[in-house]
């Protein structure tokens, strides 16, 4: 897992090491749990990859790692625009978004501050994945 490096102009760089992190940090615990769940889901037949990120960390596992930028932009755009659409209709917080493409599907959601996108083949059971990833 990659952790953010914080720099200060007059001080020595402070590297936040995963081992030194407070294990009871709730936010971090949620991220770790989600990361574990996604790693399990990734083993499913038909699941082609996922992106998990919060304000400090990111875990990415994609079938096409060379397209990481495209996937990240897509993921970000879906979450942002969906929130906008939901607000326009006054529907409250977005729980999940299913994007059905011509070739693959994507399931996106936000859990706490963690933004998740799971990519899968079209015939994959997205409802089951949603159930497993939801808290």
């Amino acid at each position: 897992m990659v952790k953010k490096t914080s720099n200060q102009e007059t001080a020595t760089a402070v590297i936040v090491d995963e081992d030194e992190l407070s294990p009871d940090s709730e936010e971090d615990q949620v991220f770790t749990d989600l990361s574990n769940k996604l790693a399990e889901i990734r083993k499913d037949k038909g699941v082609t990859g996922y992106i998990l990120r919060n304000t400090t960390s990111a875990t990415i596992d994609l079938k096409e790692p060379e397209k990481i930028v495209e996937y990240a932009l897509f993921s970000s755009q879906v979450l942002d625009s969906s929130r906008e659409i939901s607000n326009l209709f006054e529907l409250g917080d977005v729980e999940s978004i299913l994007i059905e493409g011509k070739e693959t599907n994507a399931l996106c959601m936000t859990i706490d501050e963690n933004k998740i996108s799971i990519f899968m083949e079209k015939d994959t059971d997205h409802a089951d994945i949603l159930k497993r990833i939801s808290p």
Partner: protein
Amino acid sequence: MSNEVYTLALKSTLQEIQNACPDVTSNFIFKDGKILAQDKNTNEENATQIIAAYDTIAERTDIIGGLETMTIQSAEGKVNITSINDLHLTTVSSNEADEKYVNTLTRILIPIVIKLVEQIQPASTDNETITIDQTETEDDTTEEIVDENEETVDETTEDTENYQPYETEEETATTELDEETEQTETEIDYEPLLPEPPVTQLIIENLKGFRVPADTVRVDTEVIAQWNELYSDKKINEVEVEALNGKTTRCKVKPIKKSKDSGKGIIKMPEKIQLTLETAAGELVTVKPVVE
């Protein structure tokens, strides 16, 4: 039928959907970034912003092969945007809505209405399509006899097997056409939307010969097999051919019989059709099946 009537038909359908299912709180249809039809509850300004948001997502969907459907599940309701051909149907429903019922209403009823409206709409929308005049068939065949060559003999042999006098063919064609027209006018086709006809690029080869119908092209058997596979329960009798110059025509189609021509990506075309398309042998054309 004008666009206004088309829009009115869609608008009425959207309103009826909402009447039938009060849990649908808003629905509208858009095309090319513009609202085509909306129900009474839909705020136009909101709809415009939603279209913009949808478009920004659609721009990023190359990695998933393009956007077909988007479903946003929120705490207090659901938004679904589905593509139907080049139209996009947006449905907003509460969480209490019966998803299957709403889907039945929207994903089946709307395509039926669109299909029905398009069928009723006069062929004037296809202004560029040139229809071959069947009455000129005989004259052209006579001219082609002069150009007989080796290929002509082969083709003639093939065609002689299936030869029927032209008058009979014309009568049959006319009768079929009348029947089809009547069916279109009286019956509503409740079948689901068919997939978009695939466009195939083929090279023109001359089709000459005694008794070669001037309104029929011959296409690679493999290509026809693909069409038949795609539209299993529909018989492909006609194709729309488009030349590189943009000229199009609709004509009958039959498979190429000679096995040596199979798989070469060619279309055998009578001179008359070549003249109509202002094209010639050796040039490329795009061909797509006419599914009715």
